């Protein structure tokens, strides 16, 4: 019998073993970004920017040129790269602490400039790497190490809807929120990420895909419960769907 190859690891991923916790969806998101790079055949012309956060070591996993950035500054670093190499594909990979908190100004202004980069925004509603502190996207009532009584809106404000906010910015060409809590949604997430990269190749402007992601470790639940928690708690507050798409807007 001849073997038929039905799956292989994307060429845009290295052979290094991922360090992410069991049940963490960072790994799935890495994989779909890498598959998209393979499918678009852009690995050799892509320069990625790794964040500070659990994905800090992304430069070990993506098999393309990478720059490691300071906390929150990835969009600025990507801007510098893209201005030097306008013909290359530049992406940032950022968590919610990185993008929505310390780096809020950088992402807003990269979008405002219509910077021709693609941002993969991994929103797990918590600071994973530093041990589960409250993030700007932690839900009201969510217990974290720094909101031990649950996030209180009157004290800590309400969770920022980054996609909705960026969608109001003229330069943000593509904005979509997706999730990776089950296979159909993983496939949708991949489609959105592919589209965002494609639009960059077409020179359309800034693109961001917000990916709802899990952090079972710091949520203090099992991986399976984590997927359920995401679906039941995050999606109602962070509704999935496309908010900006140049194709839709052209109609």
């Amino acid at each position, binding site marked *: 019998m001849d073997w038929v190859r039905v799956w292989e690891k994307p060429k845009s991923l290295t052979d290094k073993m991922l360090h992410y916790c069991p049940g963490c969806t960072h790994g799935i998101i890495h994989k779909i970004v890498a598959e998209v790079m393979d499918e678009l055949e852009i*690995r*050799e*012309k*892509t*320069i990625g*920017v790794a964040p500070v956060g659990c994905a*800090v*070591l992304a*430069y070990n996993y*993506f*098999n*393309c*040129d*990478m*720059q*490691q*950035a*300071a906390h929150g*500054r990835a969009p*600025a*670093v*990507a*801007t*510098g*790269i*893209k*201005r*030097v*190499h306008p013909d*290359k594909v530049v992406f940032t990979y950022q968590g919610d602490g990185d993008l929505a908190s310390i780096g809020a*100004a*950088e992402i*807003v*202004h990269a979008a405002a400039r219509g910077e021709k980069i693609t941002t993969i925004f991994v929103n797990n509603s918590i600071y994973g790497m530093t041990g589960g502190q409250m993030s700007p996207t932690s839900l009201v009532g969510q217990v974290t190490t720094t909101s031990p009584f649950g996030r209180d809106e009157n004290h800590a404000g309400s969770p920022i809807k980054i996609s909705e906010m960026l969608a109001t910015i003229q330069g943000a060409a593509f904005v979509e929120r997706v999730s990776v809590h089950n296979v159909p949604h993983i496939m949708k997430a991949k489609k959105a990420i592919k589209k965002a990269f494609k639009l960059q190749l077409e020179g359309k402007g800034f693109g961001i895909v917000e990916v709802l992601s899990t952090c079972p470790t710091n949520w203090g639940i099992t991986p399976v419960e984590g997927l359920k928690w995401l679906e039941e708690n995050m999606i109602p507050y962070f509704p999935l769907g496309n908010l900006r798409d140049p194709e839709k807007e052209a109609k």
Partner: protein
Amino acid sequence: MAKKLMKGNEALGEAAIQAGCRYFFGYPITPQNEIPSYLSRKLPEVGGVYLQAESEVAAINMVYGAAGAGARVLTSSSSPGISLKTEGISYIAGAQLPCVIVNIVRGGPGLGGIQPAQSDYFQATKGGGHGDYRLVVLTPSTVQELVDLTMEAFEIADQYRTPVMILGDGIMGQMMEPVEFNPPKKRELPEKTWATTGCEGREPNVTNSLHMAAEDLENHNLNLLAKYKEIAQNETKYESYETGDADIVLVAYGTTARICKTAIAELRKEGLKVGLIRPITVWPYPDKAFEEVMDTAKEFVCIEMSTGQMVEDVRLAVNGRKPVHFYGRTGGVIPSPQEVADKIREIAGGVK
């Protein structure tokens, strides 16, 4: 090439372009605004990019990206802005990326004022940002030197893969003087094989300042140290002015050094033997200049536009062998040649 009358800040911008710099990222702050203004007009003419960032924090990180991508890149600011840039500077030093950073210093701390000062000396030479790193810090004292050192700065940055700072002050930036643009002696610069340009036909490149294992980071820091030693050996610059017979040796850099030279002319007419050591690199510090005069000099006087910062390096260089005095004005007040001369006369009264 004919000399051209130019304002310091604009001359600096032109020097950067002539040195092959094609990227500038910055954020407005007085008194260096003519640098971005000049470059926003001129860089597009040569196919370069001027981009006004949303903050100094973003600007220096754009510099990080562009430098990592292999470009010659410049940013400029003034004191409060440089404070914000120190985060990025530390990362750039850690990732060993070449770039040039200009600080046209104004008085501080805090919002301070907009008049010229030399009160960022500690910040420039003793770190500023976190971690075991050094900046090469060049201190021009004429507009011509501002031009020459700016061009040289790009060469030093590329040769050693290190950020280089031009430390000027409001006077250097605003003053007009005739200048000519002569490219510096060509160095043999290593190819930027480490740059992130897309990995076609090679293994991927990574720019990074993260070293999780303590031993790895220690190794990295020791490698940086070895590089800094090499820089100190090859790149230390200073001027010794009328020090041959000097009993009293003034020490000053930048604008203050010019004021000292005027005071020296006056004092020499009175028969006082006064000279000047003018560090051109304040890191690496020119200790050698002090050794050259140690047998003849009786006293050292450090003159600064600060409450006393470089004087600590003077004390280290002199190392207790001779008395070290200090005279400084601060907050943006510029010392006059007369008051410097008066201070020297006072000290000379006690010199045996």
